[in-house]
C-alpha cells in the first residue's frame, strides 16, 4: 500500500541530495505561505466590502437603474464565448458537470444575496453551455457563429451605449476595451503585416517604422498622447474618453498583431505562392485565399495570448480618468472608511483577474494543441 507513494516521492522529491535539499526547503515554505494566506482569508479578512461594492467593481459609474443593460451585454458575451469555444472543442460530459457545479454554486450564493443577479448568472451559464453544445454538435450552428458574432457585437453596443459611453466602467469596461481592441486591431495588424512584405519599399518602410515605433514606446504614453491630441485635431467632434482609450489601445496593439501575423506569413511555404502565381492567380487573391488563412491558423494561439495581454494592460486607462476594474477597486479604497480593507479588495481583484486570465490561457493552450493535431 505504502510502497507506491514512497516510490513516487523517491523518484520525484528525494532522488538526489540536491533534490532532497530543495524539497525540504520549498515544501515547508509553500505550506506555510498557503496556511498563512488561508488563515488570513478565513479569520482576519472582512469580506463584507466585496458584496457591498460589487456593482461599482463590475460596472463602475454605470447608472444603477440601467444595470440590466450591462447584464444583457454580459449574457451576449457569454453566449459568443460559448459558441466560439464549441467551434474548437466539443462539450463533453465532464464539461457539463463543471457547468452544473457552477450553476449550483451560483444558486447557493444567490439564496443569500440578490435574486436578480442569480437569475442573470444562471441564464449566462445556460447560454454559455447551450451555445457551446450547439456549435460543437451541429455544423449549421457552427456556420452561424461568425455572422452571429457580428450581430452579437452590434447588439452589445446597441444595448450598452444609450446611457452614454462615458459611463462605462468596472469589469465591463475592461472587457469591452479588450473586445474592441482585439477585434479592430486584427484587420489593421494584417494590413500592416502585408505592408511589411509589400513590393514597394516605401510601403515596407512606413509599415516597419510604424510597427517598430509602437513596439518601442510604453502603452501608457500612447494612450495619454492620443487622449490629448485627438481633441486638438478634431475640435468639432467630441470623441468620448472611452473611444479615445480604445483608439490608443488599437493603435498600439495593431503593431503587435502585425508582428504575430508576420511570423505566421513567414511560416507559409514560399512554394505555395509560386504555385498559385503559376496558375495565374492575382496577387490579392493569392494572399486572401491561400496565404492568409494558413498564416492565421498558425498564429491563432499567439493572438489569443495577445487578447490576454490587452486585458492585463486595460488598467492603464486610469491615466485618462477611466474607471476600469482595477481603478474601480481603488475608488472604493479612496473612501477613508474602507482604508483597512486594502488587502481584501486587492485579493478580490487579483483572483478575478487570475480567473479570467487562466481561462484565456487555457483556451490558447487548447487551441495550440488542437491546431498542432490538425496540422499533422
Amino acid at each position: 500500500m505504502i510502497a507506491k507513494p514512497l516510490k513516487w516521492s523517491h523518484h520525484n522529491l528525494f532522488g538526489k541530495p540536491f533534490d532532497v535539499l530543495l524539497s525540504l526547503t520549498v515544501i515547508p515554505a509553500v505550506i506555510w505561505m498557503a496556511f498563512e494566506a488561508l488563515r488570513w482569508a478565513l479569520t482576519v479578512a472582512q469580506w463584507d466590502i466585496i458584496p457591498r461594492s460589487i456593482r461599482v467593481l463590475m460596472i463602475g459609474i454605470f447608472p444603477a437603474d440601467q444595470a440590466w443593460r450591462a447584464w444583457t451585454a454580459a449574457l451576449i458575451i457569454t453566449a459568443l464565448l460559448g459558441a466560439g469555444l464549441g467551434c474548437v472543442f466539443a462539450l463533453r460530459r465532464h464539461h457539463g458537470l463543471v457547468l452544473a457545479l457552477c450553476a449550483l454554486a451560483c444558486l447557493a450564493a444567490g439564496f443569500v444575496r440578490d435574486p436578480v443577479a442569480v437569475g442573470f448568472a444562471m441564464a449566462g451559464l445556460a447560454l454559455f453551455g447551450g451555445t457551446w453544445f450547439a456549435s460543437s454538435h451541429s455544423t449549421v450552428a457552427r456556420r452561424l457563429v461568425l455572422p452571429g458574432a457580428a450581430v452579437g457585437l452590434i447588439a452589445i453596443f446597441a444595448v450598452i451605449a444609450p446611457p452614454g459611453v462615458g459611463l462605462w466602467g468596472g469589469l465591463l469596461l475592461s472587457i469591452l476595451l479588450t473586445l474592441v481592441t482585439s477585434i479592430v486591431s486584427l484587420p489593421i495588424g494584417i494590413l500592416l503585416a502585408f505592408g511589411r512584405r509589400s513590393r514597394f519599399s516605401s510601403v515596407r518602410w512606413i509599415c516597419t517604422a510604424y510597427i517598430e515605433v509602437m513596439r518601442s514606446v510604453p502603452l501608457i504614453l500612447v494612450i495619454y498622447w492620443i487622449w490629448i491630441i485627438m481633441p486638438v485635431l478634431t475640435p468639432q467632434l467630441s470623441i468620448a474618453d472611452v473611444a479615445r482609450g480604445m483608439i490608443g489601445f488599437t493603435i498600439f496593439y495593431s503593431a503587435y498583431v502585425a508582428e504575430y501575423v508576420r511570423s505566421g506569413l513567414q511560416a507559409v511555404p514560399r512554394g505555395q505562392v509560386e504555385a498559385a502565381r503559376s496558375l495565374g492567380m492575382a496577387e490579392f487573391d493569392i494572399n486572401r485565399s491561400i496565404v492568409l488563412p494558413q498564416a492565421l491558423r498558425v498564429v491563432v494561439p499567439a493572438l489569443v495570448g495577445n487578447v490576454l495581454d490587452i486585458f492585463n494592460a486595460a488598467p492603464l486607462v486610469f491615466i485618462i480618468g477611466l474607471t476600469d476594474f482595477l481603478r474601480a477597486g481603488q475608488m472604493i479604497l479612496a473612501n477613508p472608511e474602507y482604508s483597512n480593507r486594502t488587502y481584501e479588495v486587492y485579493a478580490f481583484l487579483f483572483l478575478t483577474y487570475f480567473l479570467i486570465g487562466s481561462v484565456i490561457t487555457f483556451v490558447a493552450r487548447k487551441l495550440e494543441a488542437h491546431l498542432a493535431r490538425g496540422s499533422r
Partner: protein
Amino acid sequence: MALEQANAGVARSDAASIVARRRRNRVKYQATQLAIVVVAIALVLLLGMLVNSGLAQRGINFTFTFLWNSAGFDISEGKTVVFDQSIGPRLTDFTADLNLAQAFVAGLFNTLKVAILGIVLSTVLGTLFGVGRLSTNWVVRNLCFWVVEFVRNTPLLIQIVFWYFAVVLQFPAIASAAKFHGVIISQQGLYLPTLTWQGAGDAVALVLLTACVVAIVGTIFDRGRARWLCCAVAVVVFALMLGKGTIAVDFPMASKFKASGGTSISPEMAALLLGIVFNSASYIAEIVRGAIDTLPKGQWEAAAALGLSRRDIVNDIILPQVFRVVLPSFGNQYISLTKNTALGIAIGYPDLFNIYGTVANQTGHSLEGIIIVMLAYLVISWIISAIVGAIDHRLNAVGAAR
C-alpha cells in the same frame, strides 16, 4: 539574372518587347513609390499643421524653452548631470534648484537603473524558471509552473502594487531592522556597504579607476589569452591606485529616519524591480521552455547514454543551443521590460514617466514632455535591439563556424 540569360536565346523582337515592358513596369513602380512617399509626407505635414493650429487656437504654447526653468520640486532618488567648474559633466543628486531638463535626466537615470538591473536579473531568473519547469523534482517543477501561471495571467500593475505594499513595506522599520555586517534590510530600503575611494579625486585617479574596472571586467569575461593580460593590468593599476590613496569600506549607519552611507536600494525601486523581474522572468521562462521543447529528444538521450548528469546536460548541451535560438525573443522581452518600468508611477518610483507627470503638472507642457519621453524610450529600445542583434550575430557566426 537567370531569367535574362534564358531570354538571351529568344528572338530579338521578343527581347525588345520584354525590355520595353520592363521599363514600363519600372516607371510605373517608381511612380507609385513616389506617390506613396508624397502622400505619406503630406499626411505627416498636414497632421503637424493641424496640431499646431489646434494648439495655437487653444492658446497652448508649444515650446521647449521651459526645460531651462528651475524645477522647484524634489525627486526622492536619482542622479542627474550637472556642468560646473570641475573637469566636466558629473553626476550628482537632484535638488529642487536644478532645471527641468536635469529632472528629466534624473528620471532617465532611474529608468535605466531599473531596466539594466531588471534585464540581467530576469534573464537569470527566467532561465532558472524555464529549466525548473523541466526539473525531475516534482515540487520545483510545479512551483515554477504556478509562479509563471500566476504572473502571466494577472496585470503587472497589480503585481507591482502587491510587491510594494504586501512584501517590501512589511519589512521592519529602520530602528528595529536586522543589521548584518552593515547590510540593513528595512522598509526604508536595502542598505549595503560599499567600497569607497579615499584620496585624491583628480583626473589621474579617475583614469586609474576606469582602467582597473575595465581590466577586472576583462578578466572575468574574456576566456582567451587576454584574460591573463587583463589580470596583470588589474593588479598593476590597483597597486598604482593604492599609491595615491586608500580604499575604504563605507558602512551604512542607521539614524532616526533612515540610514546614511553605503549604497541603498529604495523600497520603490526594490518593489518595481521585483515586479518586472518576476514578470519578465515568466515570459522568458516560457521562451526558454519552448526552445528546449523544440530540441530533439534524442539529444537528452544521447547525453544520458554518455553518462552525463542531468545538470551537465542542461548546462553544457541544452542551454548553449537554446540561447542561440532565443536571443531575438529575449530582445523583444527586454524592450517590454524597459517599457514596463513606466508602471513605477503606481508606487511612486520616480522614473522618466513619473517625472514627466510632475513636470507636466507644474508647467502645463504636456505635449512637449510626451515627445521627450517617447524619444527617450525609442532610443533605449533601439539600443537594446542593436546590442541584442550584435550578440545574436556573433553567437550565430561562431556557431556557423563550428
